[in-house]
Structures are given as C-alpha cells and as structure tokens.
C-alpha cells in the first residue's frame, strides 16, 4: 500500500529544519507577560478555568453588516455621497412649507434609489454570509471525551478542543500540532491560501506528544499551553506547553494555520489554540484597497459643476424674486394685489423681501435639483455589475485547462480597462508558463537536444533568417508550436544519441551515466507510484526540479522510491543492457538557498562509495571544480552561454567522491551546526557545507525552457498596436529578461538598447573594497550618468523615429527610484518603446508602478500571478491577477482575475473599450437628460416671476429620473457596442479613444450639456409659442398650466428617449423595448394617474383623456417639438460622421460598406497604427521590410 510505505518515511532526515530545536531563551521568556497572556487548557475546553477565559468562538463572519447594523450602517454609507446627501437634505426640506412640491413626491425617488442600492448591498452581504455559513458548517472530527472523536461543525470549535484533521482537509482553526500519522509526527501543509506558495511546508510536533497516534490516547490527555496573544504575523509563534509536568517550548513549527491544507499526511491530531477572529489568517485579512476609476472621479467634478450651476440659477432666481416681491408693496399700495402682498407669509412678504429671497433660494435649490441626476449612482452601479457579469461570462476568456473563467472581483474599474496607457507585467507565470521543460543538456562537452525554443525562433526571426511572409503566416507558426506541445509535461527533449538507452554508445558514456544518475538522485522530490500502471509521478518543490527527475526517468534512470535514508532507482546497466534496481543510501541533503545557489546530496552507493552530488548555478559551480575536474569546462561554458542566449535556465552538474574520514569530519560539523541554536546557525551550516562542496568534477549542464504562455507574442503585438506601452518587471537575470523580451517581440533587432546597470569595473572594484558609502555614491553617479546619456540619445533621435528599449537592473533601480532621479528616469523610460526592469524586488515593482502612475498621470495596469506581485497589483490603477498555478495571493489582491495573459487582449480591447464607451456615454447622456429637464423647469420659472412654481405635476417631476428615462440609459450602459468584438480586435488602434479619453473629454461633456441646453430652450419656447394664449382645441378651451406642463413633459420624454435612439449604435430588442417602453410608460402613467380621483392626481386628473388626446394641437406640437429638438444633434452627427468621423465611426463605415472583406483596404486603415508602433512582431516585420526596401533602393 502506498500509504503504508509512506508512513515509514522519515522525512526529517531529508529536510534540515531551519528552526531546529527551540529553547526558552529570547521570546519565550515573555510568556505570561503583556502580549503573551493566552492560556489554553488542552482537551478540556468546557472546564471552569477555560470558560472564564471566554475566548471568541470559531464562527467567522466576513459580512459588512449584521441584521441589526444593516440599516444604520448602509444608510450611513449611502449618505456619505454628496449627491445622495443633497437629496436627503432636499427631501427633509420638502416637509417644510418651503417645498415647491409635495414631500412624498420628493422623498419617494430617493427612497427608491437608496432602496435599490441597499438591496444590492444586502444581496452582496447575503452572499458573503452564505459563503461564511459554508465555511462555518464544514465538518471536523473533535474529541468528545474518552477517546471518542465525532464530527462537528467548524463553528462549534472551542479553544482547547482536540481535533483530528485528515488528508486534504483544511485546518479549521490555528492548531497546535500534537501528532501525525507519521512516527516522527511530521506533516505536510499547503499554505496556498495564505501566501500563494504551492510547495509543501513541513511541520513537526513536539517529541513529547508524538506518540499520541490513536484516538484512544486522548481520553485522558491534558496539557496547558501558554502563548502569545492573537496577532497577524504568519511566521511567528511563541508559546510553551506544560505536559506531564514538564515545560516544552513551542515554535511556528508546531502551529498549523487555519485555511492551510493537510497534504501527503493521512491525519494529524491538534489542539485548537486560536479560533475565529483570533486566527492568524483572519487577523491578516485586510480589505483590498478600494479603487475608483478616473471617470468616476471626473464625474464627481461634473456633479460639483452642476451644483454650482444649480446654485447660480437659484441665486439669479432669488435676486429677481426678491426684487419683484419687494416691488409688490410700495407705500401701502399693492402692485400685484391678487397676491395679497399686504398680508403675506414670510416666504412672499414684500416687507421682508430679503428674507423671502433667502427662503426662496432654498426652495429653488430644491426645485432645480432635477439638474442633478438622482439615479446616476445607482444606475452606474447596476450597469457595472452587469458589465462584470458579461466579463465573467465571456467564453473567450475561459481557460479550459484550468477550468477558470475571467473573474471581475470588483466592478468599479470596468471603464478604466478601456483607458490603460501602460501595462506593467510580471514575467514568470504571466508571460511565461512557469512550467519548465527539460530541453537540452551538455554532457562531457557534447551538446544534446534538438528542441527549438520559442526564444530561438524569435532569435531566428530577429537575425532575419527566412520567415514566413506576413502576419497570418506568423500566427500560424505560433499556433503550430502550441499544438505541437510535448506529450510529457516537463520534457521536451529529443536526441536519439542518448535516448532509449543509446547513450551507452556515446564516447563518454560513463559521464553520461553519472550525469543521469545525478539528475535522478540529487533533488528533494517525492515519487508517487500509480498502483495500476506502475507509472511514477513526482511531487517537487519547484517545476525545474520536477523537470530534472522526469528527464532522468525518460532517459532511463527512473527514481521510484524514497525512504528516510535511501533513494531507489531503476537504472540501465551499460554492461548487461538490462534494467536493474539500485539503492543509494541517503546521508545528507545540503539544501538550496538563494545565497548558496546550489544543492547537494551525499549518498552511499551499493558498492559503499561515498558520493557528493551537486548541482548549481554556473557562477558558483565553476569556481568549485577540482583541477582534474575541468576537462570539459571550456565546452560546457560555451554551451551554457548558448543556452542562456536562447532564453534557457541552466544548471551545472558536478560530483565528487568522498573518503570516509572526510565524510565523518563533515557530518560531525554539519550535525553540530544544524543542532545549534545560536544566531549564527545559518552561517555555521554554510561554513560546514562550504568545506565539502569543493574540488568537484564537472559532468555537464542542463538547460530548461521557461515556456512562453500561449498566445503571448500575439497578445503583446495587439496591445502594442493599440498603443499601449508594456513594461516588464521581473526578478530574473538581465540576460533571461532580454531573451524573453526578444521572444515576445518587446525587443527586436534595430532597436537601440539602453542598458543601465552597475557592472562597471570601477564599482566592482569598490565592491571588493566593501566600502558601502563609496559604493553608494559611485553607483548613484553612474546611474545618473547612464540615465542622462540615454535621455540625450532619445532626444537626439526623436525625429528619426528610432525605437529605444530601456533595460535596467534592480541595483540601478534602487538609485533611479530615488526622489531626485526618478523624474529623469521616468522621462527616459517614457521615451523608450519598451522597458524591462530585471532583478527587481516586489517592493521595487510597486515603486515603479507608483512612479509611472503618479508621473504620467495615465492609467496603469499591473498584471502578475505571484505573491511578489501583490504590491504592484495594489499600487496600479488596475491590478490583474493571473489565476494560474502560483496560488491565490495575486488573485486575492487583484481587481480582475484572468487565467492567461493572452486574455488581456480581449479584456482590454473589447471589454475595456466597450465599458469605457458605455460608461462615458451613459454619464454624458445622464447629464444631458437632466439638464434638458432641469432647464425647462428653470425657463418656466423665468415666466412665473421666479416664484418657484414647478411647471410639472409633482409626480411627473419625481418619476422623470426613476421611470421614464432611466431604463434606456441602463440598457445603453450594458449593451451598447460601437463596433463588434471582432472589429475591436481587428482595429486595435480603436483603443486609443479610451487612452486619449476622447469620449469623456471636457469638450464632449460640455458638448452634451450644451445639447441639453439647446434642447431645453427649443422645447420650452416652441411649446410656449404654440400653446399660448389662443384656443387649444376646437371647443375654444385654452391651455392652462396643467396642459402646458403635460405637453412640455411629453416632449421632454420623447426627445430624451429619441436622442438616446440617435446616440446608440447597437439596437437589440432590449434597446427598443426600453426606449419605446419608456415613452409608452409615460403615456400609460399619464392615463393611470389621470384616472385616480382628483384628490391624488390634482392637476393631472383626466388631463390626457379629456384635454390632450382629443386635441390635434397636442399631437402636432409634440411631433413638431420633438423633431425640431432633435434636428440640431442629428445634423451635427451626420456631418461629423460624414466628414470628421472618429475612429470608431471609420470602422463603422468599413463594416457598413463591406470593406472588411477587402484585406488591402483594411490594411490601409490599419497602416496608421503600424507606422507609429515600435514593438510587437508586426512592427518587427515592418521594420524588416523597411530595411529590405531601403537596401533595394540603395542598390537601385
């Protein structure tokens, strides 16, 4: 049985525990003091002592509201918005005699709008609650006494409970590991949910409790744990356990964190230490930074602007009102006697005219509130939610392999997606797959492997070797490579010289044998043998490690079994030519770390020989070779350089034989170092290993390809055509970064590379001298000088349209990002077509992002997949997480998650463009319709001596925004498309409309407002002139206030809805339904409202049935006014469409005229975008063609 075999392993031998043995020194002395006061009575959570401690339960809640706080809290949230607060104030004022309309009619729309938003909030919170309930109701086995374990819900756990967690279950709370199914009480934990790392972490219980491996052991188990108070630090834990009258120190090594998962271990027993809100993961969860889009910020400005207009209008009205009111009573004679100015209320009293004017001002502010669209916020929110659903539902952004659709985690930023100016991209896992493929190797100075890497293809293109013509062919090759993926994951090696056991015939076959054996032994992977097929698969810490073991397996050295002290292989015996099983005794593992840059194992083979097998980076390995081990050094170096040039990751493999004495001496020193608890433990270990990892004999080198993700070059090309700048921020070496740059066409031949680094001899010399101050000073000078030079070059060639690429490394970046230099650096970077920052730390990534965001004041988008990208994602205007293999950390802190880099193309060019266009049109239109409506009210005021008498019935007023005009806007915000997705992608330059913000520029906003102004004037004056004062129908009746009001209102509803019909370019049934439905609804409302008793309907009573409908005037006026009000816009739009179309207009022409099938014609339109573009493979081809034609011209 697999599980049984597993159980026997003793992994603590493989891993050297970093924390070793804990002691009571240091932090542990603080236990019991402030901050370290927690006391846990293990296995007796119900006891009196435990009860008085009263720790929180394990119920977690991520909801914003509870039933009790929902109302006040969400109301508060709502009224924090200026506009909503304004409407609340007017709503309250409506209950005073100041109100120009009835209070209910003023409050109801606000009520509806706030209600809708609150319902939305409520639903979202309800979903969160359900999610919580799901979590809280997960089952876990808990000790109920007498050694009996029973299932219970997570939420019922109490501090001190003993739980049993089984394989692949999540830990329900922060647990103290007591014992596991392994004898040495270790267990494997996957912390993906915490830090995004997929590799397994090893935890180990105290020896004292490790024997408690059965349920029955816990019947009378008792222990007292004293430890630190709840805190957010995931990597620290200080505590002690009193067990069987002995004190044991506790470390993070014994702490299992909630939301991490038990892996490769059948079960563990643990004591609950922190529950619910006290757990480290929940203490750690912070709300993601709330981001607001530029458009929304600008919208706020427009609202303030409208407030100013409103106040101004009110002020004008009040002044006029004050003067006329004052005039009404002069020396006791009444002017407008019918108003009884002699006996008036304060609001109309000529004797107190200034006060009346002030009161009037308040009334006017209420009356003109229709200038501000009350439903704007809620409509935008509804629209954005629906837009996000569309993004989530897009099948073109669904990644089949990982079963992941796009996931817009926030809907605030949809339109921002259409305005991205700069993309800052991570490399590994984002541009590349983070799946390593063993593709080449160099053994004994001979290079093996015929595979052609993506990078080599790119290099071939770059060097101008034969290349398929044109763009389409180029795409084909890209597709081919994706189809012709290697069948075995991690292995793309092809060379019949060493495959299928042919290596035995190679000249240095013994070296090959050693090489392959080393690959099969020197690693920390764990094999998993499929019981049925006998196939072996591996679990490894990193994908390159897996690639090595797989390669060894495929080449005949199958690693199939690991025990605590041995590694077993099936290997080919060159003499007999048969497969034999070999067992290697595993003595030590010298782990990999970033400073050592190598790992080694010490094994004893079957003949009893002691071998040190080592692999590592070229920079550390070559210097450790023995004099007699350098036989193939020259060739290997050459190969390694070649491989690096082709964008491959290389490792050097070497070994040495040890004598018994040497090993004994080493082992003593090493064991001592490992067991020491002093601060320099690491240094001691390093020192011990240093001594033995020398005098190595070179075997060869491996090359692993970091594969570009599917469609990355095409996507980058499209984005470049769209005019988006792409920066790559990577932790990789400069060479790798440059190679990837070439592979994805961010760099190309003919591009001038400006490389900024600190690899100058002067600085190197200083580094040797270790004078930090001098290094810093010299470095800074050097960076400044390099940046200035680069800047000069860029400026000098600004006319020749020479493309530049900036490549800067992390060390230089430190100085370039300093306050006094960063603007210069940014200027240089902005001047370059592509920018690559290599060797950059997560913090630098975030800093660069901030610099670009703040410096260019344009929208930045950061895309990344790992925990190291979190800072960048949160800093950027939009953070896109790749929900790939590297865990959830990036996704959790992103705004939108996609599965593959290539989906960015569709996300930005299609959804981004659409959303930007929709939201900006929607907002413009909102202001248009409210200005139209508000100004008719104002104009009417001017004819009612500014007495604040509304032209319309109260309910007409309040339903305008809510019913008759809001649905079409929402439909536009959700469904409108200027051009279809296909054309968005075909003409990427269309995206520039968003980047340059042409659809939401002040010009356009004011244009729409002006349109509203014109419409209002046309509607009001035409209605006035055609209805007054003569008879309105053939019965000689004249049009009173109610008829004029209803007619004008009808015109407004028609005009505003028809204007919408003119403005949108995509008519589905839904649009028709909403637009014409809005108009129809108005008539229906008029009918229904007019039919209820006059007590409620007041002036609207039977107005339609009796007055309007039978009168031809009404219909004639409506038709006339509506058409006249639309003609200016219609003419403007026809002329614009005809003579000055915007880019989307041009594409609409192309589509309309069917030119899209004519490739030459399309190219003509696209040409523009190619000409200005400097990165991407089309630019590369264009550049190449230019060179060819130049040459041709020169010859001719």
């Amino acid at each position, binding site marked *: 049985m697999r599980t049984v075999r597993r159980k026997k392993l003793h992994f603590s031998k493989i891993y050297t525990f970093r924390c070793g043995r804990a002691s009571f020194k240091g932090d542990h002395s603080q236990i019991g003091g402030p901050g370290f006061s927690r006391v846990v009575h293990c296995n007796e959570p119900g006891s009196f002592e435990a009860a008085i401690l009263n720790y929180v339960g394990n119920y977690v809640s991520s909801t914003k509201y509870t039933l009790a706080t929902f109302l006040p809290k969400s109301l508060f949230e709502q009224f924090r918005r200026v506009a909503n607060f304004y409407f609340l104030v007017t709503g309250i004022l409506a209950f005073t005699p100041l109100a120009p309309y009835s209070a209910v009619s003023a409050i109801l729309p606000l009520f509806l709008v706030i209600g809708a938003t609150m319902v939305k909030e409520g639903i979202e919170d309800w979903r969160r609650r359900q999610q919580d309930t799901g979590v809280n109701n997960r089952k876990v086995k808990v000790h109920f006494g007498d050694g009996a374990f029973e299932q219970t819900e997570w939420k019922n756990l109490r501090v001190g409970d003993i739980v049993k967690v089984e394989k692949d279950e999540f830990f329900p709370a922060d647990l103290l590991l007591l014992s596991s199914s392994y004898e040495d009480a270790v267990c494997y934990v996957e912390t993906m949910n915490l830090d995004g790392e997929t590799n397994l972490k090893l935890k180990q219980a105290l020896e004292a409790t490790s024997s408690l491996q059965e349920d029955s052991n816990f019947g009378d188990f008792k222990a007292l744990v004293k430890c630190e108070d709840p805190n957010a630090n995931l990597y620290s834990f200080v505590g002690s356990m009193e067990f069987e009258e002995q004190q044991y120190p506790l470390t993070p090594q014994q702490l299992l964190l909630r*939301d991490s998962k038990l892996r490769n271990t059948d079960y563990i027993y643990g004591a609950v230490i922190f529950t619910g809100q006290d757990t480290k993961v929940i203490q750690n969860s912070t709300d993601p930074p709330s981001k607001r889009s530029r458009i929304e910020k600008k919208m706020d400005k427009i609202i303030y602007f409208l407030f100013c207009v409103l106040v101004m209008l009110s002020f004008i009205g009040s002044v006029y009102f004050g003067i006329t009111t004052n005039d009404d009573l002069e020396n006791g004679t009444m002017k407008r006697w019918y108003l009884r100015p002699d006996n008036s209320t304060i609001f109309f009293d000529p004797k107190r005219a200034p006060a009346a004017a002030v009161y009037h001002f308040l009334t006017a502010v209420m009356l003109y509130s229709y200038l501000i669209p009350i439903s704007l916020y809620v409509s935008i929110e509804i629209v954005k939610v629906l837009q996000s659903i569309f993004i989530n539902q897009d*099948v073109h952004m669904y990644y089949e392999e990982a079963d992941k659709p796009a*996931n817009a985690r926030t809907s605030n930023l949809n339109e921002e997606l259409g305005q991205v100016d700069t993309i800052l991209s991570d490399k590994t896992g984002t541009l590349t797959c983070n799946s390593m493929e063993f593709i080449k190797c160099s053994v004994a100075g001979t290079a093996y492997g015929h595979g052609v890497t993506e990078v080599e293809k790119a290099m071939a293109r770059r060097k101008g070797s034969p290349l398929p013509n044109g763009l389409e062919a180029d795409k084909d090759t890209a597709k081919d490579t994706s189809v012709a993926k290697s069948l075995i994951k991690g292995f793309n090696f092809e060379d019949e010289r060493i495959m299928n056991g042919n290596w035995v015939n190679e000249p240095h076959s013994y070296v090959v044998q050693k090489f392959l054996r080393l690959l099969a032994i020197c690693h920390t992977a764990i094999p998993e043998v499929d019981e049925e097929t006998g196939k072996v698969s591996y679990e490894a810490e990193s994908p390159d490690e897996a690639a090595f073991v797989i390669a060894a397996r495929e080449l005949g050295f199958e690693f199939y079994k690991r025990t605590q002290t041995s590694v077993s292989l099936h290997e080919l015996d060159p003499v007999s030519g048969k497969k034999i099983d070999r067992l290697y005794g595993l003595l030590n593992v010298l782990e990999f770390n970033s400073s050592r840059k190598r790992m080694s194992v010490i094994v004893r083979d079957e003949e009893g020989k002691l071998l040190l097998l080592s692999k590592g980076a070229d920079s550390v390995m070559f210097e450790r070779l023995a004099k007699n081990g350098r036989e193939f050094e020259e060739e290997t170096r050459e190969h390694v350089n070649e491989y690096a040039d082709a964008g491959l990751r290389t490792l050097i493999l070497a070994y040495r034989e040890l004598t018994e004495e040497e090993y004994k001496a080493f082992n003593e020193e090493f064991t001592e170092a490992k067991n020491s608890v002093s601060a320099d433990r690491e240094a001691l270990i390093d020192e011990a290993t240093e001594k033995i990892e020398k005098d190595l004999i070179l075997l060869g080198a491996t090359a692993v390809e970091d594969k570009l993700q599917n469609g990355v070059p095409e996507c980058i090309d499209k984005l470049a055509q769209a005019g988006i700048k792409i920066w790559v921020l990577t932790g990789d070496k400069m060479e790798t970064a440059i190679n990837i740059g070439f592979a994805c066409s961010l760099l190309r031949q003919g591009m001038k590379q400006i490389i900024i680094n600190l690899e100058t001899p002067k600085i190197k010399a200083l580094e040797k001298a270790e004078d930090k101050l001098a290094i810093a000073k010299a470095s800074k000078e050097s960076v400044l000088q390099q940046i200035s030079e680069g800047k000069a070059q860029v400026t000098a060639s600004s006319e020749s349209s020479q493309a530049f690429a900036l490549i800067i490394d992390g060390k230089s970046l430190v100085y370039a990002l300093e306050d006094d230099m960063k603007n210069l650096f940014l200027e240089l970077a902005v001047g370059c077509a592509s920018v690559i920052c290599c060797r950059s730390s997560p913090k630098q990534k975030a800093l660069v992002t901030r610099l670009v965001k703040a410096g260019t004041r344009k929208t930045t988008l950061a895309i990344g997949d790992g925990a190291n990208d979190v800072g960048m994602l949160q800093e950027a205007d939009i953070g896109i997480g790749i929900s790939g293999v590297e865990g959830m950390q990036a996704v959790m802190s992103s705004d939108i998650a996609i599965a593959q880099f290539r989906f960015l193309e569709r996300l930005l060019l299609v959804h981004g463009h*659409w959303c930007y266009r929709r939201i900006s049109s929607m907002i413009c239109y909102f202001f248009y319709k409210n200005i139209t409506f508000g100004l008719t009210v104002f104009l009417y005021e001017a004819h*009612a001596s500014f007495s604040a008498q509304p032209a319309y019935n109260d309910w007409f007023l309040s339903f305008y925004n809510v019913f008759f005009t809001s649905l079409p806007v929402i439909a536009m915000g959700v469904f409108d498309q200027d051009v279809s997705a296909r054309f968005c992608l075909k003409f990427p330059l269309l995206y520039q409309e968003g980047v340059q913000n042409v659809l939401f520029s002040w010009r356009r906003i004011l244009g729409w407002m002006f349109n509203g102004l014109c419409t209002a004037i046309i509607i009001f004056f035409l209605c006035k002139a055609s209805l007054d004062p003569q008879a309105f*129908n053939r019965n000689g009746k004249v049009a*009173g206030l109610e008829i004029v009001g209803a007619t004008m209102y009808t015109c407004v509803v028609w005009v505003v809805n028809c204007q919408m019909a003119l403005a949108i370019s995509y008519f589905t049934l839904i649009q028709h339904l909403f637009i014409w439905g809005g108009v129809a609804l108005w008539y229906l409302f008029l009918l229904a409202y007019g039919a209820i008793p006059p007590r409620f309907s007041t002036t609207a009573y039977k107005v339609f049935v009796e007055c309007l409908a039978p009168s031809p005037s009404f219909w004639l006026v409506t038709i006339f006014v509506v058409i006249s009000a639309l003609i200016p816009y219609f003419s403007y739009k026809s002329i614009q469409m005809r003579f000055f179309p915007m880019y989307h207009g041009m594409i609409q*022409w192309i589509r309309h*005229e069917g030119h899209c099938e004519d490739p030459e014609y399309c190219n003509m339109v696209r040409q523009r975008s190619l000409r200005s573009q400097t990165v991407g493979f089309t630019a590369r081809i264009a550049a190449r063609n230019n060179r060819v034609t130049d040459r041709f011209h020169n010859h001719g």
Partner: protein
Amino acid sequence: MDLGSTDGASESPSAAAKKHSKKPKYSKFTQQELPACKPILTHGWVITAFVSVGVIFIPIGLASLFASERVVEIVDRYDKDCVPSTYGNDTLAYIQSTQTNKTCIRSLTVPKQMKSPIYIYYQLDNFYQNHRRYVNSRSDEQLRSKAYEFDTDDCDPESNTDKGPIVPCGLIAWSLFNDTYGFSLQNKVLQVSKKGIAWKSDQKHKFGSDVYPKNFQSSGLIGGAKLNKSIPLSNQVDLIVWMRTAALPTFRKLYGKIEVDLEANQKITVVIQNNYNTYSFGGKKKLVLSTTSWFGGKNDFLGIAYLTVGGLSLFMAISFILLYVVKPRPLGDPSLLWNINPVGHSN
C-alpha cells in the same frame, strides 16, 4: 463590491470535489452577440431622414396655416380707453373707487364672416396666475365637497371670516375676474352662452354640486367678482374657468360664446363693465372674439414653424445631395478621415 469571490480562500472541500465545470454557458446574450441593427448615418439615411421630415412637415405646416387663416379673431384692448380722460393718469383711483361709472361702450367691426360658435375671451397681460403663492392658495377639498368646508389651511389670507370659513377660499377665487361684457348687434342683444366653457371633469369631479358660496367677498378687502350664493360651485362656470390657472402671465380665458353667425363688416357694440383692476400692476385687458379651427384658435406660429423646419430639412437634404455630387469622396478613406493621433510611441 466583491463579485463572485467564491473561488477564494474559502472554497469548501466538498465543492472542490464536485468539480462542476465553470465554463460560461454560451448564449448570444452572454456573449453580447445579440442580433442587432447597427444603423449608421449613411448618406442615404441622412438624406432620407431630412427629405421625409420636409415632406411631412410642409403639408402639415400648410394645413395648419390654412386653418389658422380661416380663423377670424377680433382683439380689442380696452383697459386704457375705458378709463374716462378726466382721471388722466390716476387710473388706480378710478378703478378702486366704488362711485365711478365703470360702464364703457366699445364698437367692434367684424372683418370677415364669423361662423358660430364665436368664442368670447378676456385676455389678461402681466398677470401671474402661475405665481406659487397664488397657485397654491386654494382648497381643492373644500371646492369638491361640503364636508371639507373647514379645510382652508392653504387659503390664507382669504380663509376665514368672523362668521366662518370662506367658500370658495383662497386668493384665486378671491381675485375672480369681474369685468362683464354685453354684446349687441344693431341694437339687438346677442346672447352670450356660458354652456360648455368649463372642462367637464372640473364641473363633475372638482367642484361640488353641494357646495355653495359662503362668506365670499363679504368683508375686508374685496378682490374680484362676487358669487351668487344660491348657485352651487359646480355651476359657477366663470369661477371654474378662472380657477384653472394659466401657465403663463399672458393668458386668455373663456368668457362665453355667441351662437350666432356674424357677417363681415357688421358692427358689434360691446358694453363693458370695467371693474377688474389690472392698472395697479400694469396689465392689459383685452376682449377677444374668435372662431376656432380643427386645432384651436388663430395660431400662425405653428404653421410657420412647421414650414420653416420642413424647409430647413429640405435645404439640408439638398446640401447633402450636393455635397455628394460635388465631392463624391470614397467613404472611409483613412487619409481623409484620420483624426486620431496615436501618442506615446512616436515620441
């Protein structure tokens, strides 16, 4: 907002085990590929639109202009002339005095034949019936039903007297127009019919048949006309007409109708009781006699406006056609159409 964060940290193990494919379902709706008409303003459309507006508007304009021409309207401003010259500029003293003789005789010539019914209007100028204080100064409840007699909250200062509530209360009723007109043709009295001058819904539902005027114009300042206490409000048509407030400061109100045809050049004598005070606020008073057409009174504006807009549309259409003929530019030619400057890379 945090949409669909279900696949976050808290994915339950059972859900993971079920492994439903999360692949979005394809539908034209979710993929935003719904069949749609995508109109763009092509030459054809623009010209068609303009031509059709022209073609529809010009006949309507002509028809309404023609109808308006057929309406015969006599307008006579009498506020100035009806003040005896002895009062000179002190018109206010004249109108406010109860002693003065307010009778004024006017003679009107019928320009063209006027077919019955001939509607009689009074037109007031600069009278803000739409002033908020004025509009709200009424009690709809009181007007409708006897039961709400005391419902006079909004009517101040014309709400109550010592003897009880005023019915009808409020400024509108109080300021009821009180000029009267008597018409005679060749010394033969022309009957003025008040039938059907008010909206039916008003008479039926807004003004109660059981509500009688009470304490109206009985004390303090007297505003306008007095009401016959024996006639219920639903039959006080002048009041009903007056109480439908006008939208604008210049307005006409129906006074009555003459149901006799008048021939051209006939002279009508009008005896006006010039009671109503428009002098204090400088308003004009006019007497209007008018026939109607199918769409109402004399209104050249609508016809002319229709013709203008129709003509303008035709003009636009012709301009577009000319542009098309003179400058038949291939549409969508990028070299002519380009107006977007991709920034960024070139600098």
